[in-house]
């Protein structure tokens, strides 16, 4: 994860290495308020979700007796694990497309743009913070039955009546999610490209490597941590999305979070919903752990930094 903050690197003085396991009063004053808030409003809910997942529903009310039923149901009923597999497939597609779209643009801005580089970069990451809903909704206008794409195609004469395949299909979901999460990947890849010293490229060319060789032997390996971090973001976020599928996809393109959504809503089966929530949570944490390790292993710069800190 790019938000890893477990190892603050300090370089004010080599001789200064403060590692004292002691609760100082200053620490307690700073730590206790956020700690209390987070335990009550964050840790407790996650624990509650976990406990909920072992209860069951009888005639619309929750029965507080321990059972594995929900987990068994999840892993045996095609509706649930099938949806999870489908979700993973769609999230993978979104991730692949996001990376394929992000890399050339990030590379272009970083290596080819000379003037207004900062402006270009800002333009690219603006959508990151621009309303999620606006971006999902935009695709409904573009792909809808009376939408721009259909009326455009009709006016050109390619089709004579609106097509429904654009909206309410897995394609629409993949397109919209790719659009929504590409800026995340872009930011991550751009940052990693930016950290590659310029002279490495020159050194590689100086040593006789061509443009392609330089890219595949030098640039790509060095930017891999950024690609992994960005891809992780896109994958995890796409996997948990339920609004875009609901807005743009048909019943056939419902993702796992839509199932959770309906179990906590109309289907009114909170324990099963919690079970799926927990399964998703565990899956996400697993993915984060794995990619975090991958990122570390592929990172060439961090090792240098660590050695320096010795």
């Amino acid at each position, binding site marked *: 994860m790019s938000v890893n903050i477990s190892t603050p690197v300090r370089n004010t*003085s080599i001789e200064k290495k*403060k590692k004292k396991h002691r609760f100082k009063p200053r620490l307690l004053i700073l730590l206790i308020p956020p700690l209390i808030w987070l335990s009550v409003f964050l840790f407790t809910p996650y624990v509650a979700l976990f406990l909920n997942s072992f209860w069951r529903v009888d005639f619309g009310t929750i029965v507080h007796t321990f059972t594995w039923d929900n987990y068994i149901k999840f892993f045996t009923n095609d509706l649930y694990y099938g949806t999870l597999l489908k979700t993973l497939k769609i999230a993978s597609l979104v991730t692949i497309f996001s990376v394929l779209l992000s890399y050339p643009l990030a590379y272009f801005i970083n290596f080819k743009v000379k003037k207004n580089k900062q402006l270009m970069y800002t333009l690219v990451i603006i959508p990151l913070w621009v309303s999620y809903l606006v971006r999902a909704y935009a695709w409904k206008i573009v792909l809808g039955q009376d939408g721009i794409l259909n009326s455009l195609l009709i006016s050109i004469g390619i089709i004579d009546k609106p097509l429904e395949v654009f909206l309410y299909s897995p394609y629409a979901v993949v397109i919209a999610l790719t659009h929504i999460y590409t800026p995340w990947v872009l930011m991550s890849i751009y940052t990693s490209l930016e950290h590659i010293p310029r002279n490495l490229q020159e050194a590689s060319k100086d040593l006789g490597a061509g443009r392609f060789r330089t890219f595949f032997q030098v640039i790509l390996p060095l930017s891999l941590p950024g690609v992994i971090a960005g891809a992780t973001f896109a994958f995890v976020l796409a996997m948990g999305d339920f609004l875009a599928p609901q807005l743009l996809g048909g019943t056939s393109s419902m993702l796992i979070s839509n199932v959770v959504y309906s179990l906590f809503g109309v289907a009114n089966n909170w324990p099963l919903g919690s079970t799926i929530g927990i399964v998703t949570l565990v899956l996400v944490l697993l993915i984060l752990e794995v990619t975090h390790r991958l990122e570390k292993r592929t990172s060439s710069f961090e090792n240098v930094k660590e050695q320096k800190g010795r």
Partner: protein
Amino acid sequence: MDYIIKIENVEKSFGNEHIVKGINLDIKPGEFLTVLGPSGCGKTTTLRLIAGFEDPDAGEIWIDGKSVSRIPPYKRDVNTVFQNYALFPHMTINENIAYGLKMKKVSKSERLARVIEALRLVQLESFGDRKPRQLSGGQQQRVAVARALINNPKVLLLDEPLGALDLKLRKQMQIELKHLQQKLEITFIYVTHDQEEALTISDRIAVMNKGVIEQVASPKEIYESPSTKFVADFIGDTNLFEIQISPTNETNVVNLFGTKVGGRIREPKSLTKQNYLSVRPERVKLLAHGEEAPYFLSGTVEEVIYVGSFIRTVVKLQQGQRIVAMMPSKGDHLCLPGDRVRVTWKEEDGIVIGQ
């Protein structure tokens, strides 16, 4: 009072790293003391212990007769000039310098007067309204000194204050700092890894290595009469030879490769199991043909390098070791590689030291 600062058996560890291993040091009022050592030797930590940024694990520090071991930095009568100056980037030079006075609740008018005086002291009168980043490295360095001096501290601590400057400016600032110190008669404790700098500016030098102070003495004594192999090796260049000392040793004669050569034992009690003979290159003499000497070693010239004011000659001795001689480049006889030569030195220039 004899001492302005007294450090007694002070120890400091960070995690498993024992950085300062029980040091003792007395610093006299008004003296310019330099703590010299390679990076990681614990010199900066020693300074930080005096300033109060670190608490000692053991031992005691006295400033002006008061134990300060549990007193926070803001209550200590010492001020620091930091390695990279640590000027407040969001404040002007005036505000930076006035900061200490503001904390002491000195009135605004007095503050202003003293800031002007301080700026004059470091010759930056017209820079008061600028921000630190608008100043050059050398100017920032002066601001850091002015800021630290405005509180009239009893002791000024300087942590490699010239490390970021280029060589020429560094030499100039060394002189300026020395003059400033003599003018103000404040005790300076100066940390550096640059032995030349230490020799230039200090009244006394404390040589530190691996958390231990190896020798405290005047620059001349440190150079001419190092007490340990490390000190001899770290300060200036030297020729070091392993030697055996027998109890029946004649005074000022040691046995080197079976030849009796001149060498005085600096302090009999400092000798260890393994001992060394140290001869500075500029004290090594190449004997001219037919020239007599009470003792000498023979060898072949291996390398002659012209280094401006000096000529550096490397001689490979018959016994296999090398010895380096530095001679003024205007010397009368010049050797060439391959020449057979004899080298010697005066008795007092060969120093016998322990590990």
